[in-house]
């Protein structure tokens, strides 16, 4: 089954030149869901609807959004919804598209979320490098406020909700929700110990839920069309539309929207136009952003949803699909990744702080042809000692790819030791 006939739900507005304006958004039916939620539904009803839709978080972990919201204490107390717009996972560029091209969709979903959890002041934490997205989103918030869609007494419903944008300073770790909260509070962005979880002790010590941009962009659909309609999209327990970021050696890299569960090969070979060069076959795919285990070509017959990819030993993650042809040297690719994580490790906890730099040293000597056979097992052993033993998932996010690259492409790593050069044909010229 191909999805050629699929018409986008999340990206339906983005091709209009004026898609970022309030007028265009309203013309396409925008803010009807917010009005419906505020005027026809109680917060509990909204929450139940989101729960029933099966919506799972699009930031990477795939945790059910309705359940996450339901962890927030009920009642009037001060609490916060925070939008995680710190999209930084290598290979991932879907949230930026939504914010730049359809900011009101993001805002509408976020406001509905605020209503559902009883938040009177929502914060949007946006990646510092997203200068344009920040500008667009800020204008959208101002326009929404002027139109009575944000701020006091939204749409005459009596619901007040202020929205504040906050720009990050350029740290990958601030996409981790508790590091994000630290940064938002003006502190050094370092993950907190959990428990307590943000739903109990979050922003400024108050109950807080942190949601991804794409996640909240699904919420207006659910409210407007109903949870059973929404749940019919995709696959059981993996419902709804999904944005896939395809990059690497394909003819048409970009953001693609399909239901959860689109076959990886269909995505790469049909929608993204197939391999970039005819004589360069598929070697491997990283299906969910740089932090997830890699899939070799022979294991790419897999559906792109949370559970199917978990069964295949990897993760949907942020759906950053990085396609590699056989020109890629896996030692070089992993070294590149390790350098990223070593640079982005917050430095707080021992295994990640020290381990990431050690990975780089080992991979660097392997890449230079100065490694030893024992280095391969050392890389695997370091992964065992990092994964599961750190404060936050950044340690896992580097340990998992290291383990999978070495295990899947062990011959290639071994070749770097014994032949002191690349098995890839030929090595990438870029380095």
């Amino acid at each position, binding site marked *: 089954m191909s999805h050629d006939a699929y018409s986008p739900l999340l990206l339906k507005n983005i091709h209009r030149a004026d898609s970022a304006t309030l007028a265009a958004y309203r013309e396409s039916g925008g803010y009807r869901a917010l009005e419906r939620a505020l005027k026809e539904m109680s917060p509990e009803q909204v929450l139940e609807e989101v729960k029933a839709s099966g919506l799972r978080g699009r930031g990477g972990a795939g945790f059910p959004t309705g359940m996450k919201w339901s962890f927030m204490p009920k009642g009037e107390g001060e609490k916060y919804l925070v939008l995680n717009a710190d999209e930084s996972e290598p290979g991932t560029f879907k949230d930026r598209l939504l914010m730049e091209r359809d900011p009101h969709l993001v805002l509408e979903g976020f406001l509905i979320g605020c209503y559902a959890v009883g938040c009177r002041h929502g914060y949007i934490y946006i990646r510092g490098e997203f200068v344009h997205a920040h500008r667009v989103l800020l204008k959208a918030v101002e326009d929404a406020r002027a139109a009575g869609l944000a701020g006091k007494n939204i749409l005459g419903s009596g619901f007040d909700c202020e929205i504040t944008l906050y720009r990050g300073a350029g*740290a990958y770790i601030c996409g981790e929700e508790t590091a994000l909260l630290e940064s938002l509070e003006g502190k*050094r962005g*370092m993950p907190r*110990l959990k428990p307590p979880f943000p739903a109990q002790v979050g922003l400024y010590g108050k109950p807080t839920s942190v949601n991804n941009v794409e996640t909240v962009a699904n919420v207006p659909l659910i409210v407007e069309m109903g949870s059973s309609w929404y749940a019919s999209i995709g696959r059981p327990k993996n419902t709804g539309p999904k944005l896939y970021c395809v990059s690497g050696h394909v003819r048409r890299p970009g953001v693609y929207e399909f239901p959860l569960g689109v076959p990886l090969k269909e995505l790469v070979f049909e929608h993204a136009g197939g391999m970039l060069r005819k004589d360069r076959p598929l070697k491997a795919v990283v299906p969910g952003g740089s932090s997830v285990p890699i899939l070799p070509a022979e294991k790419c017959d897999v559906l792109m949803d949370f559970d199917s990819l978990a069964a295949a030993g990897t993760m949907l993650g942020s759906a950053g699909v990085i396609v590699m042809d056989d020109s890629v040297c896996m030692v070089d690719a992993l070294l590149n990744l390790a350098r990223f994580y*070593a*640079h*982005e*490790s*917050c*430095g*707080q*906890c*021992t*295994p990640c*702080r*020290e*381990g*990431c*730099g*050690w990975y780089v*040293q*080992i991979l660097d*000597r392997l890449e230079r042809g100065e490694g030893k056979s024992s280095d391969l097992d*050392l890389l695997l052993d*370091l992964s*065992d*000692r*990092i994964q*599961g*033993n*750190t*404060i936050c998932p950044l340690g896992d996010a580097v340990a998992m790819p290291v383990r999978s690259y070495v295990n899947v492409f062990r011959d290639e790593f071994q070749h770097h030791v014994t032949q002191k050069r690349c098995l890839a044909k030929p090595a990438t010229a870029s380095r």
Partner: protein
Amino acid sequence: MADSQREPVTLTIDGRSVTVPAGTNLIEAARTLGIEIPHFCYHRNLSIAGNCRMCLVDIEKVPKNQIACSTSVAPGMVVRTRSEKAVKARQGVMEFLLINHPLDCPICDQAGECVLQDFSYHYGTGGSRFEGEKVHNEKNVDIGPHIVFDGERCIKCTRCIRFCDEVTHTHELALFSRGDHTIIGTFPGSRLDNDYSGCTVDLCPVGALTLKEFRFRQRVWFLENTPSVCAGCGRGCNVDLAINENRIWRMTPRENDAVNRSWMCDEGRLSFLRYQQTERLGRARAEATGAGGAREIPPEPAWEMAAATLGEIARKHGGGTIAGITSGHATLEEQAALSELIARAGGSRIALPVHERGEDDALLIRKDKTANAAGARLAGGANCSMEELLSAVRTGQVRALVVLREDPLADFGEEAKVARGALDFLLTLDWRVTPTVNASDLALPVSAYGEMDGSIVNFEGRLQLLRPGLRPYQESDPAWRPLLEIASRLGGSAVPKSFREAFRWTASRVPLFAGIDTPAVGKLGLQLDSTSSPRGEA
């Protein structure tokens, strides 16, 4: 909430059952069983950071290792500190911590009391698979008036940062940079300059923070600790005196949650240096009548002379003309002995000079710079001010004065000089040579800090013990001995032969001390309470 009010929770650690109050973390729970869960960043008087990952333990039914410091006990919990999973993680942490550590133990002051070194022996593998270039960092950084920082030895446990954030609230320190280049430092324009900065050295598990006044002075394995109490102010922080070759090299806080938790101020920490720089009085000195200049005399003739002179003045002018100046610097036994002597001679006036400087702070420091002013009132019979006493001397109501560990000539200037001129006899007991000693008819040497046993009462009414680690200097004694020797020559009772006897004798004179003996005071002191019977806190 007090421990006794919290629900008891029973769990199993390494196959042994233990019951502790709810809310106890696994490190403390294991400690009660004598099981050490190694840790670097955890400190019981700081917030939980959970960053070193050394205390990872294996908990049944929990897939990942958990850090013991931030895991509270739960009923039926089964904890394994020595399972393969826990051991492997711990060895990993040890190896990670050492890859960028300089391993310069032979030249590091911390060696011998270094937690990293100890744990490496106990929990490491003895080797490293690291072969690359270590990350280099700043060394020998002067970050404060008392502290030097070594960025390479630092393991980023952040105890020092948390201390400055949570205890002193001065916020001088922070983490800078990221990844394996992460380094602790002071904010631009700021120095680690607060009244308690030395505590960061105590907290530092490695040799990254060292005290200027101690570094390179001694190898710690030559030092022997004497548990005592700081005499720098009315708080009486519990301390260890680190001694080698009859000299104090370092004072560090000794944990006592009822007094100073794990802390002490820098002034107290360095107080021993001041004592060492002071000229000592080692033998009794008598002013040669008419000839000018003092001569040294043996103890017994000195006591005889004092008793004879005081007795004669009492006969001539009445016992009421004999008065004393007691001191908050003296121990309870010494204060009681002075009070006894004045009474034996027929006198009653005893003044207590006040030594106040600055203000009480919110943490430990007291403006009263004496350790035992409370004792002077309880046991020392202090009953008048210095002004009243000096005026009584000037008007001839007082003709003989016994001064205990005080220096009125330096502290009260012209007023005291005039009073000196009006006295027939000035007897001073001190450990140092002061203007008052030099102006005395008779000066008797007494023990200095660290040389004697003694009891003191802090501003909150806590009875604590000073302990000796140093040999007495020349012929100096705790002042109660010469004072009671003189008193006994004026018809007083027998002189106690030991500190314990002196303490009992003192306790018998003070209703609040009824039934207390020195063992009850113990290392942690005893809160005096007039309403309930005193109990020891071990």
